[in-house]
């Protein structure tokens, strides 16, 4: 099963790191194939940043996302530039505090930045919350793989904070589970 996941938000939210972690989870810990790409450069600064991951069971040849089926959108501009055109059968997680519009596809609202600030005191981990929610809601990678990938990717000393964020993400996505 091929998944094409698109992340977007503004610079500083860790959009690219999110994609890297997801790709790593799939490729290194779930033993599937993953290719991660991103939009670079100054035009992407200030404005919306974007990053994508393809996850597949067979080797990935054509490496570019054709039609994402999963979205993680963390800013209004990101939504406008990279989320608006989502196809109706896609699933989109949005940071509900930062994105004002809503897509036509399946939409899961996660108040990640707000929760990061209020519950964990650090809005910097909002992206990890979103990742947790993404995995909980879609199972695109296994929860264990995600956890391992997070541990392998975040700065020393912040592991606990990030795992908390991940678990918070799990919880926010499946509120009553």
């Amino acid at each position, binding site marked *: 099963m091929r998944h094409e996941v698109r992340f977007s938000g503004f610079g500083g939210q860790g959009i690219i790191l999110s994609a890297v972690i997801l790709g790593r989870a799939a490729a290194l810990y779930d033993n599937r194939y993953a290719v991660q790409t991103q939009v670079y450069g100054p*035009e992407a*600064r*200030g404005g919306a940043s974007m990053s994508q991951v393809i996850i597949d069971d067979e080797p990935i040849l054509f490496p570019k996302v054709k039609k994402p089926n999963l979205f993680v959108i963390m800013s209004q501009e990101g939504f406008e530039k990279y989320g608006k055109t989502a196809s109706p059968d896609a699933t989109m997680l949005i940071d509900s505090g930062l994105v004002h519009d809503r897509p036509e596809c399946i939409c899961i609202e996660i108040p990640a930045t707000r929760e990061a600030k209020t519950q964990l005191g650090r809005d910097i981990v909002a992206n990890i919350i979103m990742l947790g929610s993404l995995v909980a809601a879609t199972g695109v990678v296994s929860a264990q793989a995600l956890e391992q990938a997070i541990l392998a990717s975040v700065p020393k000393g912040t592991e606990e904070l990030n795992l908390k964020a991940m678990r918070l993400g799990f919880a926010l996505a499946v509120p009553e589970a």
Partner: protein
Amino acid sequence: MRDDWLRADRLPHIYCAGCGNGTIMNCVLEAVDQLGWNMDETVFVSGIGCSSRAPGYIRTDSLHTTHGRALAFATGVKMANPSLHVLVFTGDGDLSAIGGNHFIHACRRNIDLTVVCMNNYIYGMTGGQGSPTTPIGKTSTTTPYGAAEMPFDLAELAVAAGANYVARWTSYHVTELTKAVVAGIQTPGFSFIEVRCQCPTSYGRRNKYRQPGDFITYLRESAVLKDRWDRSSAGEELPSEKFLIGEFVRRSRPAMGVPDEA
């Protein structure tokens, strides 16, 4: 008034929140505006870098050239038509890394240009590599263990190379900077104004000035007025974490490209 000089259809610009480049643009436009310059006789030239994007936001003829070469292009513009006012925006990397040779030669020839260097100690545009002005010990993506090379003192270099006007300020010193640009423009020959400024994204982030305000505070606190220091220091060396601001030279060596009336 200054707003006339801007290409409003391109704003907001691509600079990160709190980037010093926008401030420096303001001061330069304020200066040319105070001098009553005509937009149609003014040309802005730049190389490549965040700083070098500035001319693209200004409503005049402009030349956004290749990395490091702004002064060579500007020399062509000015020497071919000395009646144009030619100003150059450049970065520490653009001016003093790849462009160092054009820099010293433009100083030597004393081409009648006004050059404003946005010295943020880093290559901002490419994401934060060390530059020839990165202070010893500071981290960047290419100096992960701290910069080990001595940085240039750009103002001193310009003086030794022959420029007629040389000054240094920071993006905090907006009024002094504006005045220096005016003074530089009014001095025939090559005028060089170095402006130390904040890059919160590429430099600040790795060196404890992630917030623009913290960076501005650092600039304000490290800057020492040259005049005052010269008077009081009795020849001691400035502590390495400080730098001098003020006018370094104003003189009248033979210059090139000075319009006839000037």
